[in-house]
């Protein structure tokens, strides 16, 4: 069972919201599919996006995966530790491997995302 303190997307990302700010990362499933992450490109702090926009990339040795923003809003922080040590995405994708923090502009969008049970069903976990 994936943690039920957060919501999930079809693209295997999670968002944990506290006081109108969502922390965004990728799930264990995604980290596993990617293999060894060697490079992460994150957006600039202050950039604004709409739900579903591509905001960066996560790259393994062999492949490039887009990073999407699960909800509309402004990027208020990025995880510099991950840009320095991309392997954090593999070792701790749900915590230390967080990617961006976004100030939600439309909290209603969260309702469109999956809960833990829904995501478990998606990945058969």
């Amino acid at each position: 069972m994936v943690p039920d303190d957060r919501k999930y997307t079809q693209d295997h990302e999670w968002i944990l919201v506290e006081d109108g700010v969502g922390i965004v990362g990728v799930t264990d499933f995604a980290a596993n599919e990617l293999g060894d992450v060697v490079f992460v490109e994150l957006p600039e702090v202050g950039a604004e996006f709409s739900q579903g926009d591509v905001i960066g990339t996560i790259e393994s040795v062999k492949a490039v995966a887009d990073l999407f923003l699960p909800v509309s809003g402004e990027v208020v922080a990025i995880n510099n530790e991950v840009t320095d040590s991309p392997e954090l995405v593999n070792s701790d994708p749900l915590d230390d491997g967080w990617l961006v923090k976004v100030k939600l502009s439309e909290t209603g969008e969260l309702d469109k995302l999956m809960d833990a049970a829904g995501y478990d069903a998606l990945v058969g976990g």
Partner: protein
Amino acid sequence: MNDAPELKTTPLTAWHRTHGAKMVPFAGFEMPVQYEGVLAEHAAVRDRVGLFDITHMGEIAVTGPDAEAWLDGLATNRVAGTRIGKVVYTAMCRPDGGVLDDMLIYRLGAEDWLVVCNASNHTKIGGWLAEHRPSAGVDLVDRSSETALIAVQGPDSRELVCRLDAMAPHAADVAALEFYSGFTVAGPQGRWVVSRTGYTGEHGYEIYVPNGDALAVWEELLAKGEDLQVAPIGLAARDTLRFEVCYCLYGHELEEDITPLEAGIGWAVKLKKDAFVGRDALKAQKAAGVPRRIVCLEVTGRGIARQGARVLHAGSDVGYVTSGTFSPTLKKPLALALVAADVPDGALVVDIRGRLIDCHTVAFPFLAARTKGDPRAERTLS
């Protein structure tokens, strides 16, 4: 209904599946792309010893009194005069000089040769050889479907290979085996070919066995290599390993529209030979000035340049990346690129999905191979 032909398997496919391998289709086979992970597997080969199931490669037996001269007329490198027990790395080209494949040619006897070609070009090369076979003097037998191939690569590979029961009586031969040499051994199910060859840039061996011996050899290597921490290695690490030492990969640095001179394997092209398919075109290209060359690039901006990325110099397109990745040993994004020959060494730009990222040329190769000499020779990492 799925009309796709089923993927071929090797004698080790079941083993891969039950040992955590991520399997992918490759050249008509289901192959392990990784087990533990590409970075760990890459390091295992550089630091210790790793095993590769490369049974998908093609093996074509060429025999007969005219085999030597005939192969010499198709290969770019010198084949005639090869001593028994030596292995030749060569290209075979089209008449216009474009590369059909790069391959190894083994001389196992006076009239007994083995052509080992890329899995992706197996059908093409099989057809090319059949098409050019004379009516007499040369016999061709495709042995691929009965031959398994296991590579043992890394600084501890010699130690491990000598521990095999079938190799114990031949330990002296293994110890004396020179780079690009091989010999045959009587294995339980038939003839084995053991050569000191490989695609990783480390000291290593490639062992050709009948299918029936493959699983036993694989498991014996794993069991006897436990103290050496031997690891199974997938195709992903096979690519990063060869990339760091700048070995060509067909479909990347070599293609039918690239000549061996452009690809940087001119050392395997003997233009002074009497004749071989493509010789005249290559001589003409050399005389006129080879129009393109492979360069080694280090990406200094943020990004990983991958195959197909355009390379620019002074704002103009000058070529493209043939292979690129994040180098596990050197820990930076590196790329091989085919560019116009007159592009000077120094600063260039690579287009990574629309972003223009700085890069510059570096000396070839990125990492020195340790295939000869001390398997643990120190390498300066720039």
